């Protein structure tokens, strides 16, 4: 049966029909600029090493670092560190999601709360999360809670602000239409206001994730808990032992993980926008 005859596909536009050749080409089109950039960085890095600007035990060549990175993948302690860090990130981000969303709805719905908290939330976004740590350590000691506290403080304001601006920007004509259709109160929120705010909310989530990940790394460098290896602790450990190849390899791991999660949110945002006919803007 041809794709055109399949009733499930009949409503799709021609551009949506599966076409492995086109798909392969489009993946390549998306991937090659990134690959080229990585190649360029590696070349420059190698060139700097070759100039002998710093001794190799301080600035190792890319090959040494990549070999170290390969070694990580076979090391169970590395995977334990990754899992501890990711668990912290996910727990912290989930809490921030719940708190930020609740706060966003409350602030957007209440004039008093908005006057009280609106500018504070924006201010919190500009506060470097590392500045919270001394206080967090006083409150919670060198514990998971101290890290979680700062991760949540870092991410929740962005999430709340994303939701608030999404709700503030619901087009008034849609609200009027919804009211004529009989939507009031919670129903209006559930079926019209929140769905309408979704693209901005997702943008807030993406930013919240970036803040959470930064706060987490800062936290793991400062709050070192015994027998809890994490990416941040490993970083500190490699610096203390002047193990430059492992240090740089770990930084690459942190970068790649951060980017991978960011890509998830970007993908989510792209799907949301495409469904509404808000194509990407090309300049």
């Amino acid at each position, binding site marked *: 049966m041809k794709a055109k005859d399949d009733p499930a596909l009949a*409503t799709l*536009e021609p551009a949506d029909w599966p076409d492995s050749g086109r798909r392969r080409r489009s993946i390549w089109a998306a991937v090659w600029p990134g690959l080229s950039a990585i190649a360029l960085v590696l070349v420059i890095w190698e060139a700097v090493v070759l100039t002998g600007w710093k001794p190799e035990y301080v600035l190792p060549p890319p090959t040494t670092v990549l070999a170290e990175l390969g070694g990580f993948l076979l090391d169970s302690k590395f995977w334990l560190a990754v899992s501890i860090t990711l668990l912290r990130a996910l727990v912290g981000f989930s809490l921030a999601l719940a708190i930020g969303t609740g706060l966003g709805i409350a602030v957007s719905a209440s004039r008093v709360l908005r006057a009280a908290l609106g500018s504070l939330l924006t201010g919190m976004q500009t506060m470097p999360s590392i500045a919270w740590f001394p206080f967090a350590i006083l409150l919670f000691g060198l514990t998971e809670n101290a890290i979680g506290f700062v991760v949540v403080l870092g991410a929740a304001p962005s999430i709340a602000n994303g939701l608030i601006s999404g709700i503030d920007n619901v087009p008034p*004509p*849609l609200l*009027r*239409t919804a*009211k*004529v*259709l*009989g*939507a009031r109160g919670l*129903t209006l929120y559930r*079926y*019209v206001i929140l*769905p*309408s705010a*979704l693209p901005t909310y997702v943008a807030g989530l993406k930013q919240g994730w970036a803040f959470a990940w930064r706060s987490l790394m800062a936290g793991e460098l400062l709050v070192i808990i015994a027998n809890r290896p994490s990416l941040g602790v490993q970083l500190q450990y490699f610096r203390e032992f002047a193990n430059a190849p492992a240090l740089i390899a770990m930084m690459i791991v942190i970068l790649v993980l951060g980017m991978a999660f960011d890509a998830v949110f970007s993908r989510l945002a792209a799907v*949301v926008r495409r*469904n*509404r*006919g808000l194509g990407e803007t090309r300049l």
Partner: protein
Amino acid sequence: MSPAPALTVNEVSKVFTDTQVPTVALKDASLEVAEGEFICLLGRSGCGKSTLLSMIAGLASPTSGAIDTHGNRVGMMFQDANLFPWLTVRGNIELALRLSGIPKPEWDGRVQDLLAMVELPDAGQKRPHQLSGGMRQRVSLARALAQECRILLMDEPFASLDALTRDTLHEEIARVWAQRGLTIVFVTHNVREAARLADRVVIMSPSPGRIVDEVPIGLPRPRRLEQPEVAAASGKLRELLDHYDLKAA
């Protein structure tokens, strides 16, 4: 014997006080619309016709006077279709069904019927942005009908469409109006549109917005925009509009 009224507007005024100088948007408007009647509110911008419509819809309340819809459900269409962009065509109609408390098992059949009625039987899975302006207004009509409104308010719904599409939609709305026995209040500033569609044209005049005259259009249906009778009627409406403008100035 005249049919029962579907809508009564009694001495309604609307004053906006949130501006620097209070603005009288509508002054002492009175109007009675019979069940199944198609009326057009005709006037220049600023004559209060949209204000009156949004008060009938319950989106704003009169400063003084009263509006009685005699228990009829009121639906409304706007100049833009205002479809919810995160929902498919089907989803838009289903939301209207849900908000009207229609039980879920009936949705499928109703969506099919409504889409067939607006001649878009296969558009259910489409997204609003994939439709043309005229198609979007058809979906908007289907959505308004989904809430089983007896009174349909239309605020210049075809003003942003091209002439050919507008012509088709005029036929469509006249057909749906007759089939469903709807009562329609249609706002326009287009004299030909008013002559083409209305049983009765209510003429409004600006500053302050008020109702100044009523003209019955007794032409037989179906009508076409090109008919000399329709052209003659719109000529008369134009003269009346100019007459009241001169009087106001």
